[in-house]
Protein backbone atom coordinates (compact mmCIF):
# COMPACT_ATOMS: atom_id res chain seq x y z
CA UNK A 1 0.00 0.00 0.00
CA UNK A 2 2.65 2.48 1.07
CA UNK A 3 4.96 1.41 -1.71
CA UNK A 4 2.18 2.21 -4.14
CA UNK A 5 2.00 5.68 -2.60
CA UNK A 6 5.66 6.13 -3.33
CA UNK A 7 5.22 4.88 -6.89
CA UNK A 8 2.25 7.17 -7.46
CA UNK A 9 4.38 10.06 -6.18
CA UNK A 10 7.25 9.20 -8.49
CA UNK A 11 4.93 9.01 -11.48
CA UNK A 12 2.57 11.90 -10.78
CA UNK A 13 4.73 14.46 -8.96
CA UNK A 14 6.35 15.84 -12.13
CA UNK A 15 2.93 16.41 -13.66
CA UNK A 16 1.49 18.02 -10.56
CA UNK A 17 4.66 20.01 -9.97
CA UNK A 18 4.75 21.24 -13.57
CA UNK A 19 1.09 22.15 -13.48
CA UNK A 20 1.56 24.04 -10.23
CA UNK A 21 4.48 25.89 -11.82
CA UNK A 22 2.27 26.73 -14.80
CA UNK A 23 -0.52 28.03 -12.59
CA UNK A 24 2.10 29.97 -10.64
CA UNK A 25 3.37 31.70 -13.77
CA UNK A 26 -0.11 32.43 -15.00
CA UNK A 27 -1.27 33.91 -11.70
CA UNK A 28 1.95 35.92 -11.39
CA UNK A 29 1.45 37.33 -14.89
CA UNK A 30 -2.13 38.28 -14.06
CA UNK A 31 -0.95 40.05 -10.94
CA UNK A 32 1.45 42.04 -13.10
CA UNK A 33 -1.26 43.00 -15.57
CA UNK A 34 -0.10 40.60 -18.27
CA UNK A 35 -1.75 37.72 -20.07
CA UNK A 36 1.01 35.30 -19.19
CA UNK A 37 2.22 32.09 -20.78
CA UNK A 38 0.08 29.05 -21.56
CA UNK A 39 -0.70 26.81 -18.60
CA UNK A 40 1.52 24.03 -19.90
CA UNK A 41 4.49 26.34 -20.49
CA UNK A 42 6.75 24.68 -17.86
CA UNK A 43 6.36 21.37 -19.71
CA UNK A 44 7.28 23.02 -23.01
CA UNK A 45 10.32 24.56 -21.33
CA UNK A 46 11.56 21.29 -19.93
CA UNK A 47 10.73 19.45 -23.16
CA UNK A 48 12.82 21.99 -25.00
CA UNK A 49 15.72 21.67 -22.60
CA UNK A 50 15.93 17.98 -23.44
CA UNK A 51 16.00 18.86 -27.14
CA UNK A 52 18.98 21.12 -26.66
CA UNK A 53 22.65 20.35 -26.75
CA UNK A 54 24.13 19.54 -23.34
CA UNK A 55 27.19 21.72 -22.79
CA UNK A 56 29.16 20.96 -19.66
CA UNK A 57 32.23 22.53 -18.15
CA UNK A 58 33.24 19.28 -16.45
CA UNK A 59 31.70 15.84 -16.85
CA UNK A 60 31.05 15.66 -13.12
CA UNK A 61 28.26 18.19 -13.60
CA UNK A 62 26.18 15.45 -15.24
CA UNK A 63 26.62 13.25 -12.19
CA UNK A 64 25.69 16.02 -9.78
CA UNK A 65 22.59 17.06 -11.71
CA UNK A 66 21.42 13.44 -11.88
CA UNK A 67 22.18 12.89 -8.18
CA UNK A 68 20.19 15.98 -7.29
CA UNK A 69 17.19 14.59 -9.15
CA UNK A 70 17.58 11.06 -7.80
CA UNK A 71 17.95 12.10 -4.16
CA UNK A 72 15.04 14.49 -4.48
CA UNK A 73 12.95 11.61 -5.82
CA UNK A 74 14.18 9.33 -3.02
CA UNK A 75 13.36 11.83 -0.29
CA UNK A 76 9.91 12.47 -1.75
CA UNK A 77 9.26 8.76 -2.22
CA UNK A 78 10.34 8.02 1.36
CA UNK A 79 8.02 10.72 2.54
CA UNK A 80 5.01 9.48 0.63
CA UNK A 81 5.81 5.89 1.55
CA UNK A 82 5.31 6.97 5.13
CA UNK A 83 8.96 6.69 6.13
CA UNK A 84 10.90 8.30 8.91
CA UNK A 85 10.64 12.07 8.71
CA UNK A 86 14.21 12.57 9.90
CA UNK A 87 15.55 10.33 7.17
CA UNK A 88 13.45 12.23 4.63
CA UNK A 89 14.89 15.53 5.79
CA UNK A 90 18.38 14.08 5.61
CA UNK A 91 17.91 12.87 2.03
CA UNK A 92 16.31 16.18 1.13
CA UNK A 93 19.31 18.14 2.39
CA UNK A 94 21.70 15.72 0.72
CA UNK A 95 20.07 16.30 -2.65
CA UNK A 96 20.71 20.03 -2.33
CA UNK A 97 24.30 19.38 -1.42
CA UNK A 98 24.67 17.70 -4.82
CA UNK A 99 23.25 20.78 -6.51
CA UNK A 100 25.74 22.94 -4.65
CA UNK A 101 28.60 20.61 -5.57
CA UNK A 102 27.51 20.78 -9.20
CA UNK A 103 27.61 24.56 -9.06
CA UNK A 104 31.06 24.56 -7.41
CA UNK A 105 32.37 22.13 -10.02
CA UNK A 106 31.86 24.58 -12.86
CA UNK A 107 34.29 27.19 -11.48
CA UNK A 108 32.31 30.14 -12.73
CA UNK A 109 32.13 33.16 -10.41
CA UNK A 110 28.36 33.48 -10.66
CA UNK A 111 27.65 29.86 -9.90
CA UNK A 112 30.30 29.97 -7.17
CA UNK A 113 28.49 32.79 -5.40
CA UNK A 114 25.17 31.09 -6.12
CA UNK A 115 26.49 27.91 -4.48
CA UNK A 116 27.64 29.83 -1.41
CA UNK A 117 24.26 31.44 -1.10
CA UNK A 118 22.50 28.11 -1.55
CA UNK A 119 24.55 26.74 1.35
CA UNK A 120 23.62 29.74 3.47
CA UNK A 121 19.99 29.15 2.62
CA UNK A 122 20.26 25.50 3.64
CA UNK A 123 21.72 26.67 6.95
CA UNK A 124 18.89 29.18 7.22
CA UNK A 125 15.97 26.81 6.66
CA UNK A 126 17.32 23.58 8.11
CA UNK A 127 16.61 24.39 11.81
CA UNK A 128 13.01 25.25 11.03
CA UNK A 129 12.38 22.02 9.14
CA UNK A 130 13.84 19.99 11.97
CA UNK A 131 11.75 21.95 14.47
CA UNK A 132 8.68 21.08 12.38
CA UNK A 133 9.56 17.40 12.54
CA UNK A 134 10.18 17.55 16.29
CA UNK A 135 6.89 19.39 16.77
CA UNK A 136 5.04 16.70 14.92
CA UNK A 137 6.74 14.09 17.05
CA UNK A 138 5.65 15.89 20.19
CA UNK A 139 2.06 15.92 19.07
CA UNK A 140 1.81 12.44 17.59
CA UNK A 141 4.65 10.65 19.37
CA UNK A 142 6.01 9.41 16.08
CA UNK A 143 8.56 10.41 13.45
CA UNK A 144 6.91 8.18 10.86
CA UNK A 145 5.00 10.08 8.20
CA UNK A 146 2.43 7.29 7.90
CA UNK A 147 1.56 7.52 11.57
CA UNK A 148 1.56 11.32 11.58
CA UNK A 149 -0.75 11.37 8.59
CA UNK A 150 -3.02 8.74 10.14
CA UNK A 151 -3.36 10.61 13.40
CA UNK A 152 -6.73 12.27 13.84
CA UNK A 153 -5.25 15.06 15.95
CA UNK A 154 -5.50 18.49 14.27
CA UNK A 155 -1.75 19.10 14.40
CA UNK A 156 -2.12 22.67 13.24
CA UNK A 157 -3.89 23.61 16.46
CA UNK A 158 -0.92 22.42 18.46
CA UNK A 159 1.70 23.87 16.17
CA UNK A 160 0.49 27.24 14.84
CA UNK A 161 3.87 28.88 15.50
CA UNK A 162 5.76 26.06 13.88
CA UNK A 163 3.45 26.26 10.87
CA UNK A 164 4.09 29.99 10.42
CA UNK A 165 7.81 29.37 10.73
CA UNK A 166 7.54 26.64 8.13
CA UNK A 167 5.75 29.03 5.77
CA UNK A 168 8.66 31.45 6.06
CA UNK A 169 11.22 28.88 5.06
CA UNK A 170 8.85 27.62 2.37
CA UNK A 171 9.43 30.95 0.61
CA UNK A 172 13.13 30.14 0.56
CA UNK A 173 12.50 26.65 -0.73
CA UNK A 174 10.11 27.70 -3.46
CA UNK A 175 12.77 30.19 -4.58
CA UNK A 176 10.44 33.11 -4.28
CA UNK A 177 10.98 36.76 -3.50
CA UNK A 178 12.10 38.05 -0.99
CA UNK A 179 14.37 35.03 -0.54
CA UNK A 180 15.23 34.12 -4.15
CA UNK A 181 18.91 34.55 -3.49
CA UNK A 182 20.76 31.64 -5.00
CA UNK A 183 18.79 31.26 -8.19
CA UNK A 184 15.53 32.55 -9.46
CA UNK A 185 12.94 31.70 -12.04
CA UNK A 186 12.73 35.30 -13.04
CA UNK A 187 15.03 36.66 -15.63
CA UNK A 188 16.92 39.36 -13.86
CA UNK A 189 19.13 38.53 -11.00
CA UNK A 190 22.17 40.06 -9.42
CA UNK A 191 24.14 36.86 -9.96
CA UNK A 192 22.64 35.87 -13.34
CA UNK A 193 21.16 32.45 -12.56
CA UNK A 194 23.26 31.61 -9.52
CA UNK A 195 23.64 27.89 -8.97
CA UNK A 196 22.06 26.94 -12.27
CA UNK A 197 24.15 29.34 -14.38
CA UNK A 198 26.44 26.70 -15.80
CA UNK A 199 23.89 23.93 -16.32
CA UNK A 200 22.54 23.59 -19.82
CA UNK A 201 20.16 21.45 -21.83
CA UNK A 202 19.15 18.18 -20.25
CA UNK A 203 21.01 18.89 -17.01
CA UNK A 204 18.97 22.03 -16.50
CA UNK A 205 15.88 20.01 -17.40
CA UNK A 206 16.71 17.50 -14.67
CA UNK A 207 17.16 20.28 -12.14
CA UNK A 208 13.83 21.72 -13.16
CA UNK A 209 12.09 18.35 -12.75
CA UNK A 210 13.79 17.89 -9.39
CA UNK A 211 12.39 21.24 -8.38
CA UNK A 212 8.89 20.01 -9.29
CA UNK A 213 9.39 16.90 -7.16
CA UNK A 214 10.60 19.17 -4.38
CA UNK A 215 7.55 21.42 -4.59
CA UNK A 216 5.14 18.48 -4.40
CA UNK A 217 7.07 17.12 -1.44
CA UNK A 218 6.86 20.50 0.33
CA UNK A 219 3.13 20.75 -0.36
CA UNK A 220 2.86 17.24 1.10
CA UNK A 221 4.61 18.53 4.19
CA UNK A 222 1.93 21.19 4.56
CA UNK A 223 -0.62 18.40 4.27
CA UNK A 224 0.75 16.84 7.47
CA UNK A 225 -0.27 19.88 9.48
CA UNK A 226 -3.86 19.41 8.34
CA UNK A 227 -3.98 15.63 7.99
CA UNK A 228 -7.08 15.31 10.19
CA UNK A 229 -9.31 16.36 7.29
CA UNK A 230 -8.44 16.01 3.61
CA UNK A 231 -10.65 18.88 2.30
CA UNK A 232 -9.20 21.28 4.86
CA UNK A 233 -5.68 20.15 3.94
CA UNK A 234 -6.26 20.68 0.21
CA UNK A 235 -7.76 24.10 0.86
CA UNK A 236 -4.82 24.97 3.12
CA UNK A 237 -2.32 23.93 0.45
CA UNK A 238 -4.02 26.06 -2.19
CA UNK A 239 -4.26 29.07 0.11
CA UNK A 240 -0.63 28.73 1.17
CA UNK A 241 0.57 28.55 -2.41
CA UNK A 242 -1.47 31.56 -3.49
CA UNK A 243 -0.10 33.41 -0.48
CA UNK A 244 3.42 32.56 -1.59
CA UNK A 245 2.70 33.96 -5.06
CA UNK A 246 1.30 37.12 -3.50
CA UNK A 247 4.35 37.53 -1.31
CA UNK A 248 6.56 36.91 -4.34
CA UNK A 249 4.85 39.78 -6.11
CA UNK A 250 4.86 42.28 -3.31
CA UNK A 251 8.41 42.00 -2.03
CA UNK A 252 11.80 42.86 -3.34
CA UNK A 253 14.77 40.61 -2.84
CA UNK A 254 16.62 40.90 0.47
CA UNK A 255 20.25 40.27 1.28
CA UNK A 256 21.52 36.92 2.55
CA UNK A 257 22.29 38.33 5.98
CA UNK A 258 18.68 39.34 6.32
CA UNK A 259 17.53 35.93 5.10
CA UNK A 260 19.65 34.12 7.65
CA UNK A 261 18.60 36.44 10.43
CA UNK A 262 14.89 36.37 9.68
CA UNK A 263 14.78 32.61 9.12
CA UNK A 264 16.50 31.97 12.43
CA UNK A 265 14.57 34.57 14.38
CA UNK A 266 11.30 33.24 13.00
CA UNK A 267 12.39 29.68 13.71
CA UNK A 268 13.52 30.64 17.20
CA UNK A 269 10.60 32.83 18.15
CA UNK A 270 7.71 30.97 16.60
CA UNK A 271 9.03 27.44 16.45
CA UNK A 272 10.86 27.08 19.73
CA UNK A 273 8.33 29.05 21.76
CA UNK A 274 5.61 26.88 20.28
CA UNK A 275 7.53 23.72 21.19
CA UNK A 276 8.24 25.00 24.70
CA UNK A 277 4.60 25.76 25.32
CA UNK A 278 3.66 22.37 23.95
CA UNK A 279 6.24 20.66 26.15
CA UNK A 280 4.97 22.46 29.21
CA UNK A 281 1.33 21.63 28.46
CA UNK A 282 1.88 18.00 27.55
CA UNK A 283 4.26 17.60 30.50
CA UNK A 284 1.55 18.86 32.81
CA UNK A 285 -0.91 16.50 31.16
CA UNK A 286 1.22 13.42 31.37
CA UNK A 287 2.22 13.92 34.97
Amino acid at each position, binding site marked *: MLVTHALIYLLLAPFIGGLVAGIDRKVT*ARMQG*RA*GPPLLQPFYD*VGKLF*EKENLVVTASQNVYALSYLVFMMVSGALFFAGGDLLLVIFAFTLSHIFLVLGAYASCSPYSFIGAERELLQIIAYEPMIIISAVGMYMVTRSFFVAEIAASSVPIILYLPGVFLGFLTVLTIKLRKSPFDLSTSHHAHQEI*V*KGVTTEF*TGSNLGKIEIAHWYENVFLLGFIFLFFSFSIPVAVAAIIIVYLLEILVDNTFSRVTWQFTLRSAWIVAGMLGLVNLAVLYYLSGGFLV
Partner: protein
Amino acid sequence: MTYLKRSPWILHYDASSCNGCDIEVLACLTPLYDVERFGIVNCGNPKHADVFVVTGGINEQNKAVIRNLYDQIPDPKVVVAVGICATSGGVFRECYNISGGIDTAIPVDVYVPGCAARPESIIDGIVQSLGILEEKRAKMLGRKRTKTAGTEGR
Protein backbone atom coordinates in the same frame (compact mmCIF):
# COMPACT_ATOMS: atom_id res chain seq x y z
CA MET B 1 5.77 17.43 -31.65
CA THR B 2 8.57 19.76 -30.81
CA TYR B 3 8.87 22.01 -27.82
CA LEU B 4 11.56 24.27 -29.19
CA LYS B 5 9.07 26.54 -30.94
CA ARG B 6 6.98 26.90 -27.83
CA SER B 7 9.70 27.90 -25.45
CA PRO B 8 12.31 30.19 -26.95
CA TRP B 9 14.48 31.81 -24.31
CA ILE B 10 16.26 34.91 -25.48
CA LEU B 11 19.61 36.36 -24.61
CA HIS B 12 19.86 40.06 -25.27
CA TYR B 13 23.14 41.83 -25.88
CA ASP B 14 23.68 45.49 -26.65
CA ALA B 15 26.60 45.66 -29.07
CA SER B 16 26.91 49.38 -29.67
CA SER B 17 23.34 50.46 -29.87
CA CYS B 18 22.08 53.83 -28.72
CA ASN B 19 19.66 52.12 -26.29
CA GLY B 20 16.66 52.81 -28.46
CA CYS B 21 16.36 49.22 -29.64
CA ASP B 22 17.43 47.84 -26.26
CA ILE B 23 14.62 49.40 -24.38
CA GLU B 24 12.22 48.31 -27.09
CA VAL B 25 13.43 44.73 -26.62
CA LEU B 26 12.74 45.11 -22.91
CA ALA B 27 9.41 46.78 -23.63
CA CYS B 28 8.38 43.55 -25.36
CA LEU B 29 8.46 41.82 -21.98
CA THR B 30 6.17 44.28 -20.29
CA PRO B 31 2.38 44.21 -20.01
CA LEU B 32 1.47 45.92 -23.29
CA TYR B 33 3.35 43.43 -25.48
CA ASP B 34 3.96 40.59 -23.02
CA VAL B 35 5.96 38.10 -25.07
CA GLU B 36 5.71 35.54 -22.29
CA ARG B 37 2.43 34.67 -24.02
CA PHE B 38 4.60 32.86 -26.56
CA GLY B 39 6.78 31.34 -23.89
CA ILE B 40 9.53 33.85 -24.62
CA VAL B 41 11.61 34.57 -21.56
CA ASN B 42 14.58 36.92 -21.35
CA CYS B 43 16.98 34.63 -19.54
CA GLY B 44 20.13 36.74 -19.40
CA ASN B 45 22.36 33.69 -19.41
CA PRO B 46 23.92 32.45 -22.65
CA LYS B 47 23.96 28.86 -21.45
CA HIS B 48 20.18 28.79 -21.19
CA ALA B 49 19.39 30.76 -24.32
CA ASP B 50 18.00 29.71 -27.70
CA VAL B 51 17.60 33.03 -29.46
CA PHE B 52 20.42 35.56 -29.42
CA VAL B 53 19.02 39.06 -29.85
CA VAL B 54 21.69 41.63 -30.67
CA THR B 55 21.19 45.36 -31.06
CA GLY B 56 23.66 47.84 -32.46
CA GLY B 57 26.66 47.53 -34.73
CA ILE B 58 29.85 45.63 -34.16
CA ASN B 59 32.99 47.38 -33.02
CA GLU B 60 36.43 46.01 -32.37
CA GLN B 61 35.85 45.72 -28.62
CA ASN B 62 32.66 43.76 -28.59
CA LYS B 63 33.47 41.44 -31.49
CA ALA B 64 35.16 39.00 -29.14
CA VAL B 65 32.39 39.37 -26.54
CA ILE B 66 29.72 38.58 -29.11
CA ARG B 67 31.58 35.56 -30.49
CA ASN B 68 32.13 34.34 -26.96
CA LEU B 69 28.46 34.68 -26.07
CA TYR B 70 27.46 33.02 -29.33
CA ASP B 71 29.74 30.06 -28.67
CA GLN B 72 28.32 29.61 -25.19
CA ILE B 73 24.77 29.15 -26.45
CA PRO B 74 24.03 25.46 -26.86
CA ASP B 75 22.81 24.26 -30.27
CA PRO B 76 20.35 24.74 -31.90
CA LYS B 77 20.46 28.53 -31.77
CA VAL B 78 19.46 31.49 -33.92
CA VAL B 79 20.63 35.08 -34.06
CA VAL B 80 18.24 37.99 -34.51
CA ALA B 81 19.79 41.35 -35.41
CA VAL B 82 17.46 44.04 -34.12
CA GLY B 83 17.55 47.52 -35.62
CA ILE B 84 19.28 49.01 -38.60
CA CYS B 85 22.60 49.38 -36.76
CA ALA B 86 22.69 45.63 -36.14
CA THR B 87 21.84 45.07 -39.79
CA SER B 88 24.41 47.30 -41.44
CA GLY B 89 25.84 49.79 -39.00
CA GLY B 90 23.08 52.31 -39.75
CA VAL B 91 23.89 55.99 -39.26
CA PHE B 92 27.11 55.01 -37.56
CA ARG B 93 28.51 52.89 -40.38
CA GLU B 94 31.14 55.53 -41.19
CA CYS B 95 32.42 55.76 -37.65
CA TYR B 96 35.97 54.56 -37.37
CA ASN B 97 35.14 52.21 -34.54
CA ILE B 98 32.19 50.46 -36.20
CA SER B 99 32.97 47.57 -38.48
CA GLY B 100 29.41 47.01 -39.65
CA GLY B 101 26.41 44.87 -38.84
CA ILE B 102 26.30 41.81 -36.60
CA ASP B 103 26.90 39.54 -39.59
CA THR B 104 30.52 40.66 -39.67
CA ALA B 105 31.07 38.71 -36.44
CA ILE B 106 28.54 35.87 -36.29
CA PRO B 107 26.00 34.41 -38.73
CA VAL B 108 22.65 36.19 -38.54
CA ASP B 109 19.35 34.47 -39.27
CA VAL B 110 16.78 37.24 -39.04
CA TYR B 111 17.19 40.97 -39.61
CA VAL B 112 14.69 43.31 -37.97
CA PRO B 113 14.69 46.76 -39.59
CA GLY B 114 13.85 50.05 -37.96
CA CYS B 115 15.43 52.87 -36.04
CA ALA B 116 14.45 52.21 -33.38
CA ALA B 117 12.86 48.85 -34.24
CA ARG B 118 9.30 48.78 -32.99
CA PRO B 119 8.29 46.13 -30.46
CA GLU B 120 5.84 44.68 -32.98
CA SER B 121 8.60 44.10 -35.50
CA ILE B 122 10.92 42.69 -32.84
CA ILE B 123 8.28 40.15 -31.84
CA ASP B 124 7.68 39.36 -35.50
CA GLY B 125 11.42 38.84 -36.00
CA ILE B 126 11.70 36.50 -33.04
CA VAL B 127 8.66 34.52 -34.11
CA GLN B 128 10.14 34.18 -37.62
CA SER B 129 13.39 32.98 -36.14
CA LEU B 130 11.54 30.10 -34.49
CA GLY B 131 10.94 28.50 -37.88
CA ILE B 132 14.68 28.63 -38.55
CA LEU B 133 15.38 27.26 -35.08
CA GLU B 134 13.15 24.30 -35.90
CA GLU B 135 14.98 23.66 -39.20
CA LYS B 136 18.30 23.77 -37.39
CA ARG B 137 17.10 21.24 -34.87
CA ALA B 138 15.92 18.91 -37.61
CA LYS B 139 19.34 19.21 -39.25
CA MET B 140 21.05 18.54 -35.92
CA LEU B 141 18.93 15.43 -35.34
CA GLY B 142 19.60 14.27 -38.89
CA ARG B 143 23.33 14.61 -38.32
CA LYS B 144 23.09 12.60 -35.12
CA ARG B 145 21.08 9.87 -36.84
CA THR B 146 23.47 9.51 -39.76
CA LYS B 147 26.31 9.35 -37.26
CA THR B 148 24.75 6.49 -35.28
CA ALA B 149 23.70 4.76 -38.51
CA GLY B 150 27.30 5.02 -39.69
CA THR B 151 28.66 3.34 -36.56
CA GLU B 152 26.13 0.56 -36.76
CA GLY B 153 27.11 -0.11 -40.37
CA ARG B 154 30.68 -0.62 -39.35
